[in-house]
């Protein structure tokens, strides 16, 4: 019985094209929007937001898998649905108010998304070279802690960021050594690294800062204020004052795209992840490439954590990252292991976090449930990934030179 169900599901999932997903996204978005208009005129914000959100998600999924036109339409419609839905249910509120709400939401989205962006791009480097990295969480956490520790002790946010990066690199080296050199199971080692980071940062945090926690006046990564556009309609509040790391993340996006898809280095990394033996036979060092990729992923994930502690929040708590590393991994998968796709997914998940902060104003406990949405989406996404045609073909398999 399970066999039959399994076979049927397999055949059914095989039929699902990105095109169908995009069309579904358009339909769902339209539905959400339609709910709000007469004659249905729902007053709760939940429907247009949730449906619009799903529409955007479906759109991103479709775009990253090749169905550009319909996918972007789905994204657009989804955003429109959410926006108009909120507007419609708040039609008594002034126009200006809504703009404020929305621009604040977008700015908030960027802030939540940035740690995810760093970690997801880090994950891309590691996974594209064939090494599974589920330790992004631990690397991010250690980056967060060591950044704030160094910033506080050495009174410099620059040194803090460097220290965070170094911590990430260190953990990544351990991960790389066990996985590449000793050919241990990458999932087990990744889980170990996460525990190690959690325990080490928690231990040192309590030892150094004790009950009182981190002090209030720690050197923070500065914001970048752009007076020229601060007064612009809508864009102003969103982009006018963003943290330096957020701007750097945009740069990172572009750089990582160029490196991975437009340079020889990226070509070689990808070849090692797809067919290490073929890469070996043309003289590429599989071991060295993988080491470099994993360490890169550690540094980037740690930078995301550093932003979290000394850029965004300004303090540190035990287990501060609270699963963001896994959301970043989810964003990476959702974005088909490509930087812009992962970024779009990170924005999506960041938006859901930003929204979840706001939703309690409208609908109490539903906001909590909303937090589960990124994970549900990723679950569906992973279920739709068939065979090895989408992740790098040789991922997760240790390589042995003969």
């Amino acid at each position, binding site marked *: 019985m399970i066999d039959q169900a399994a076979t049927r599901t397999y055949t059914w999932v095989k039929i699902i094209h990105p095109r169908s997903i995009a069309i579904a996204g358009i339909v769902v978005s339209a539905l959400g929007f339609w709910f709000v208009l007469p004659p249905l005129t729902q007053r709760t914000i939940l429907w247009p937001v949730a449906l619009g959100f799903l529409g955007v998600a479906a759109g991103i999924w479709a775009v990253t898998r090749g169905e550009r036109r319909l996918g972007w339409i789905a994204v657009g419609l989804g955003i429109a649905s959410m926006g108009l839905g909120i507007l419609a249910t708040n039609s008594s509120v002034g126009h200006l108010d809504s703009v404020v709400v929305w621009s604040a939401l977008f700015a908030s989205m960027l802030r939540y998304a940035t740690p995810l962006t760093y970690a997801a791009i880090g994950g891309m480097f590691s996974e594209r070279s064939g090494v599974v990295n589920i330790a992004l969480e631990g690397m991010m956490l250690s980056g967060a802690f060591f950044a704030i520790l160094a910033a506080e002790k050495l009174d410099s946010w620059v040194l803090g960021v460097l220290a965070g990066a170094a911590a990430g690199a260190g953990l990544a080296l351990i991960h790389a050594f066990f996985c590449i050199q000793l050919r241990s199971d990458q999932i087990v080692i990744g889980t170990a690294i996460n525990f190690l980071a959690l325990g080490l940062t928690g231990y040192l945090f309590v030892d150094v800062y004790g009950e009182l926690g981190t002090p209030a006046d720690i050197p923070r990564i500065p914001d970048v204020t752009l007076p020229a556009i601060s007064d612009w309609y809508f864009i102003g509040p969103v982009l006018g004052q963003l943290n330096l790391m957020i701007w750097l993340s945009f740069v990172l996006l572009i750089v990582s795209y160029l490196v991975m898809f437009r340079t*020889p280095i990226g070509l070689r990394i990808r070849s090692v992840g*797809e067919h290490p033996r073929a890469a070996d036979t*043309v003289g*590429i060092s599989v071991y060295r490439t993988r080491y470099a990729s994993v360490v890169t992923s550690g540094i980037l994930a740690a930078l995301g954590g550093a932003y979290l502690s000394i850029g965004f929040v300004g303090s540190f708590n035990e287990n501060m990252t609270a699963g963001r590393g896994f959301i970043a991994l989810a964003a990476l998968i959702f974005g088909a292991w490509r930087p812009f796709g992962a970024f779009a997914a990170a924005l999506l998940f960041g938006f859901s976090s930003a929204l979840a902060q706001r939703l309690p104003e409208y609908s109490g406990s539903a906001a909590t449930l909303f937090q589960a949405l990124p994970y549900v989406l990723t679950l569906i996404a992973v279920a739709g990934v068939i065979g090895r045609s989408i992740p790098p*073909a040789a991922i997760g398999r240790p390589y042995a030179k003969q």
Partner: protein
Amino acid sequence: MSVTPETPVLELRGMTKRFPGVLANDHVDFDLKRGEVHALLGENGAGKSTLMNVLYGLYHPDEGEILVNGEPVRIHSPREAIDRGIGMVHQHFMLIPVMTVAENIVLAAEPTHAGVFLDLDEAVDKVEELSRAFNFRIDPHAKVRDITVGQQQRVEILKALFRGADILILDEPTAVLTPQEADELFGILKTLQREGMSIIFISHKLREVLEIADRITVLRRGKKIETVPREGATEAGLARLMVGRDVLLRVDKSPPHPGEVLLDVDALSVLDDRELEAVKGISLKVHEGEIVGIAGVDGNGQTELIDALTGLRPAQSGRVTVGGRDVTNESAREHLDEGLGHIPQDRLRHGLVLEFSLAENLALHDYRKEPNSRWGWLRPGRIISWARGLLQEFDVRGGGPQTHASSLSGGNQQKVVIAREVSRDPRVLIAAQPTRGLDVGAIEFVHRRLVEERDEGRAVLLISLEIDEVLSLSDRILVMYEGEIVAEFTPDVSEQELGIAMTGGGREEAEATATA
């Protein structure tokens, strides 16, 4: 030492390579003249690929010397081989399916803008230039997984040319090609030869070798037998060198008494993993009390045929009947329960669960049935005592019922597999490569056993790549080539004739006489 036009561009002296338990190359001498096509001929397991892998830096030789243009060199890695102008096209392509042709060709030797960015345009230009020069017709922008196997092979060749190879090694290149593609390949090789390339062509196909090669070196069981020029070489002569006059383990057997048909295959067609027809409408019958042997070179559809007969792969069309019952497209378990026994060709991955004990392995098909279990509850005592009996009967050495299967030698492992299959009293027994990797004593045992099973009244279908084995055991011999049964012989057929049929030769004459 000065390089004269007579100096071989490549020379191997006394190459020796050992693997655990096997001497793959035994002091082999080989030389390659400039601008020649030199074929390396031999059966499966003769040591051809090993020799070339050593040359290409993938293996390290235990003894021997390599000289390039008269100069002794050490080659430790493919990179070094490439630097010395040696390029290799492997049997299993070293191409990355999701990347384009151009990307694959320039990998690790990429042209760049300002040293930083990939200059794919230049890569594409260079690829097009090379393709034009050798008349290849390859689309540099196509992804490797979207082009045909023949085209992929050309990409591999271009890869070598791009890196400036002047010695090209091709390992069984026509194994994956259709006849038309093979002809195109030969055209390309001739062009390359004209441009000054020296080519080593590894093959086991007599007809092709005679068509393309200037000289032919024959290897057998790791040793070099002889190097002959093409003039004067005949298929028959080459076959004799390849197969040799070694002692054939002819099993003493009484004449067969075939009874009713137990395995009936009717117009069976099966698709392979790439959804191409691997088995094209085959029909065959195996009677009670006879051994039918299917001879053929690996890759002609035997695997897919076995998969369909045992229920591991669906049949596209046709019918399979076992003992009168139609079992087409039933599950593997149902096939086993309907009286089919299967000795798989890969005993380590498919025949045994290595981490299980011998007793557990022996129960692999029947653990759900009485007396091994009742209502889902296993009875280890029964399983073990029954196993003990079987192990004794089949003289399995190296452990008892509780020993892990991985500790046994290959021969004893195969005995366990055979014991399991045979003790279930199947009506039809399919034996695929039953003596692969076994020593002489084990081979003898397996052969004797198969004949015993035949005498017990079972229908035995033997599929083997070893000509000796097929000749020695079969009561009837079928030859499989490119998914079809192309010939049927009696056991007194000559090896030469059989070898020719296996490699697709002789058909042209038959076709010619048919149309005449």
